[in-house]
């Protein structure tokens, strides 16, 4: 563990990413405590609508007079919640499927992988829009749509790793010692296959936030008056370019958060790959 952490600390972009992620996490957790106007999640103060950034309102106010700074902070919670839920559900579906498909070849394996291929071909946004039409547009339908389209990425990775590991020498040695398939898959292959999964999950968190923001922008995700970043940008459209602060700050929040996850994910990938692929 220790040499891995030491190596990570030397990777500056990754450390930057880690820093950003931790800050966003902190903001999400402490949200209402950090926001100067926590009530602005719902309230409206028409008297101070569309004010530019100032000492009282760091990011200015929106069309209902709400402090954008507070709403950006509060929106972090929603963003992370979506991201974590979607990625967790996708992993819960995708990882076991990948293990099953990769361990023993046969019709089950083929079927799983072909279904995976089909789902991968469906664009996330299109599915989300379709689902939003079927159910009513809401955060829940967005999360469902995203989970249902993200699990194949995990299946692919776990399938490839499981196949590689199944024919590896130490699994062969385990069979020699008498280990059964259950033990081999869950105690040995799974821990070894997890590293690329974690990398993908980290990057997936960032990606999901971005897509969720797009859905929010399209009105297919969070509904007003939620302080969702994407929704805020959508609401800001009619007031641009005069009220430039309205869209800029939520947009920056999305940018920085997604970038943070990507940098961290890249750093993790650099750590994971050479360590595992390193030959003696």
């Amino acid at each position, binding site marked *: 563990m220790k040499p891995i952490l030491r190596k990570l600390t030397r990777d500056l972009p990754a450390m930057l990413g880690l820093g950003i992620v931790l800050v966003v996490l902190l903001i999400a957790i402490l949200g209402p405590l950090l926001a100067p106007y926590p009530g602005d999640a719902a309230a409206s103060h028409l008297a101070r609508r569309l004010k530019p950034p100032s000492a009282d309102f760091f990011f200015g106010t929106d069309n209902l007079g709400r402090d954008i700074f507070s709403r950006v902070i509060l929106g972090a919670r929603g963003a992370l919640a979506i991201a974590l839920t979607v990625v967790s559900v996708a992993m819960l579906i995708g990882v076991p499927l990948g293990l099953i498909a990769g361990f023993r070849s046969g019709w089950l394996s083929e079927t799983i992988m072909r279904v995976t291929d089909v789902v991968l071909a469906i664009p996330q946004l299109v599915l989300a829009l379709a689902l939003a039409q079927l159910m009513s547009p809401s955060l829940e339908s967005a999360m469902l749509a995203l989970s249902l389209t993200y699990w194949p990425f995990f299946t692919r990775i776990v399938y490839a790793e499981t196949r590689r590991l199944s024919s590896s*020498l130490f699994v062969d040695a385990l069979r*020699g010692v*008498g280990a059964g398939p259950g033990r081999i898959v869950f105690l040995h292959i799974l821990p070894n296959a997890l590293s690329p999964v974690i990398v993908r999950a980290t990057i997936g968190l960032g990606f999901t936030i971005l897509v969720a923001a797009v859905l929010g922008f399209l009105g297919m995700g969070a509904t007003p008056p939620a302080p969702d970043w994407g929704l805020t940008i959508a609401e800001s459209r009619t007031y641009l370019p005069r009220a430039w602060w309205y869209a800029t700050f939520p947009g920056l929040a999305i940018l920085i958060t997604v970038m943070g996850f990507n940098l961290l994910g890249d750093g993790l990938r650099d750590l994971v790959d050479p360590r595992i692929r390193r030959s*003696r």
Partner: protein
Amino acid sequence: MNAPAILRLHEVSVQLGGSKGFLRKTVPPVQAVRKVSLELQEGEILSLVGESGCGKTTLGRTILGLQRESAGEILLDGRPVGGLSPEAARRARKVIQYVHQDAGAALDPWWSIGRTLEEGLKIHGVGDLDERRERVAAMLSAVGLEPAWGRRYPHEFSGGQLRRVALARILLLQPRIVVLDEPTSGLDMSVQATVLNLLLDLRERFSLTYLFISHDLSVVERLSDRVAIMYLGRIVETGPAKAVFAAPTHPYTRTLLAAAPRLRGRRVTEHVAVRGDPPSATSVAPGCAFADRCPIAEAACSTEVPQLASITAGHEVACLRASVEQTASFRARRRA
């Protein structure tokens, strides 16, 4: 034969690979092992010698059970244990264990070696955690490692130490036959010596029988009781190590022994009369597999498959042209 053989193979053949069915290209299977018969006496060291493609590794895995034979009988202590799936075979042949050539790659990199060693015991029903820990610690000492090192991970050990770990792992399962795949390859000379010493010591202590798979003729000559030379899936010569090395009869054995670099101060100026590279098992001509490279092949060699026949006690050769005269003439040349 006085003592009954602990392991007997009778005309065992193994086919590898081959896939068919829709959505997949049809690839014909490869005959990796062809009608091999051999006996392993309790307590001896038998070496399987050959070059790449000869089938020695496949034969080793077949004996272990991870590879299923396509024909022939396998008898353990006289009981038939053949024709089983890999899982069933491993259960039936629990007393046969295998040490890989790359000992480090045979260990899960995310598990400490202590945990890996304990796992074998757990699988075979040694329930009590304390008892497992004790046995693991004792075995680590027995192979020359510190018991405290059980907490370390494979990448923290050297090649020689990993071999000891691999030995400890299988010895905990109380085997009687140990198949060792290239036990000295990749090791420094001094480390090799200690590993060989350890193997001999363990054989004494745990009453083991060894099946070496090796191409290092120096090691094979020093350590083995008997050897079996393999070529393209067949045993072409077998017998007591002393006899085979003193009077190699099969042309391939002679080629092999002459080509091996030995510490005898002989210079590499003599052409060892064999043409071409070691063959692949995918396409084999009828008759003797060695015929196309053999310096003394005659017409019959390409049509008839030679069988193992005795030339002296225990020393068998599969060659149509083997004869006592040839052996004698080779002895005469060596003395000169």
